[in-house]
């Protein structure tokens, strides 16, 4: 395994035609930590995540992963370098079964070894998925879908994980469970996680560091505890 020096973003910009979604964002995710990206709807969080994973081309700036410049790589090449991205809005393959979703996630990224062992570990982690392994993923509840997405994104033990709004549309008790799982992934597997959230309180509870985006720019960043204690934080959001 190469040296983990973290994920570093310098002066990143993303444009959709005349609209500039991300303007000169620089940030650094230390290995083995959780970084929360906060901000209101439309602040540029998803665009930033998509630029990191390669779905949205960066019009300027540099992204390095463990020292390697990945700015020009296509999404699947970044995925195979151990960067995993779970999209917003529970985008899994709805008409494929739970097992097929895991299988598709495994097929092109595995570094050898058997799929069965890996799948069994997922079912051990989330026993409620066992009975539904042959059910189309679109028929699952929101919480179960999120479990499938997380399991699929983590199936090849990536070094980096991007999570876009994992709490979206889920019941509070499920959100607790999901965030507990995210925290354990970081602690036990030493996975570096970047997660973006509109709900700052939940995200800052598990994160080590964080930053706040507003109109595509970083307006505040620092340790999670300091951000959580900052009384002016919510003003930055609501003004978003």
């Amino acid at each position, binding site marked *: 395994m190469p040296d983990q020096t973290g994920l570093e973003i310098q002066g990143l910009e993303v444009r959709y035609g005349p609209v500039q979604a991300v303007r000169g964002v620089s940030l650094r995710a230390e290995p083995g930590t959780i970084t929360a990206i906060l901000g209101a709807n439309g602040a540029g969080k998803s665009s930033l995540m998509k630029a990191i*994973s*390669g*779905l949205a081309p960066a019009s300027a700036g540099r992204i390095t992963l463990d020292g390697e410049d990945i700015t020009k790589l*296509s*999404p*699947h090449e970044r*995925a*195979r370098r151990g960067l*995993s*991205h779970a*999209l917003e*809005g529970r*985008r*899994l*393959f*709805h*008409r*494929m079964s739970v097992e*097929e979703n895991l*299988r*598709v*996630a495994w*097929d*092109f*990224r595995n570094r050898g070894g058997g799929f069965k062992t890996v799948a069994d570990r997922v079912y051990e982690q989330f026993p409620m998925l066992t009975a539904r392994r042959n059910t189309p993923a679109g028929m699952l509840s929101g919480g179960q879908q999120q479990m499938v997405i997380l399991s*699929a994104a983590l199936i*090849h033990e990536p070094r980096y994980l991007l999570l876009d709004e994992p709490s979206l549309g889920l019941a509070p008790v499920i959100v607790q469970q999901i965030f507990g799982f995210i925290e354990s992934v970081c602690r036990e597997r030493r996975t570096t996680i970047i997660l973006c959230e509109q709900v700052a309180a939940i995200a800052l509870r598990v994160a080590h560091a964080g930053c706040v985006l507003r109109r595509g720019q970083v307006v505040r960043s620092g340790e999670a505890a300091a951000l959580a204690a900052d009384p002016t934080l919510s003003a930055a959001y609501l003004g978003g």
Partner: protein
Amino acid sequence: MHFVLQLIFSGVCVGAVYALIAMGLSLTFWTTRTLNFGQGSLLMTASVATVALLGAGMPIAFAVLLGVLLAGGLMIVAERIAIRPLLKAGDSMGWVVSTLGLGIFLQGFVSTVFGSQAIAFPSLVFDSLDFVDLAGVQVSSQYLAVLGLSLTLMVAMELFLRRSAWGRAVRAVSHDADAAALAGIPVRRVIVLSFVASGVLAGIAGVMVAQITGTVDPGFGFNLMVLGFVAAVFGGMGNTAGALVGGVSLGVIEKLVGGYVSTAAEHGMAFAILMVILAIRPQGLFGRKEFTKV
């Protein structure tokens, strides 16, 4: 009684070929959300090339193989020049014109080289007069071989899509290309693969139809593609069972109308069915509604 059974049987056989073309069309429809209207002319080019190669003295198996591979290869070209550049242009429907244009070009090219009249297509395995006796009904060996081969190909295709990593990748890209790319799937290569598979299916379908009709001409591919398209819409774009039921129903209806009404009405049936389906059940018999999420 025997007459109606004969008609139904030949309808089932040609219908199975329509189903192959329908499968090819829906394969590339789902990976790129475009319809390749050049498919028919690509298939025709492959059959004409097969005839030319046979005429040049090449062994049958070799000529057919080269013809089918040519269809697959031409599909790569079609994707590269008539579809990929137009998808970059955003939400335009320019691919309708470019694929149709490619088809017309190929048709014109073949007409110029080989002439626009029908060319005899030699019998490859069975003679058109060979038959076997099935429960008192005389069944053409050629038709039976066509049916067998079509069904085998469909099963093989279904197994490929369900059991192999590349097949699952084709389905994943059809569902959600972005999510597929994030799973490490090389989306571009998967799209090219879907076009090659579509071309190979169409190429084989073309050779089989040429075998039944005994001739090929520069226009036969386009008609065949239209029939495949109607079969796909009839059964619902994008699933093998739908393509098979759509193709076979279309084939049987055509042959029955041809046998009891007139052969001139036979070819109009496809369009009549298309109109009725689009009016009452646009998603097809087994289809799912296409959602656009905002």
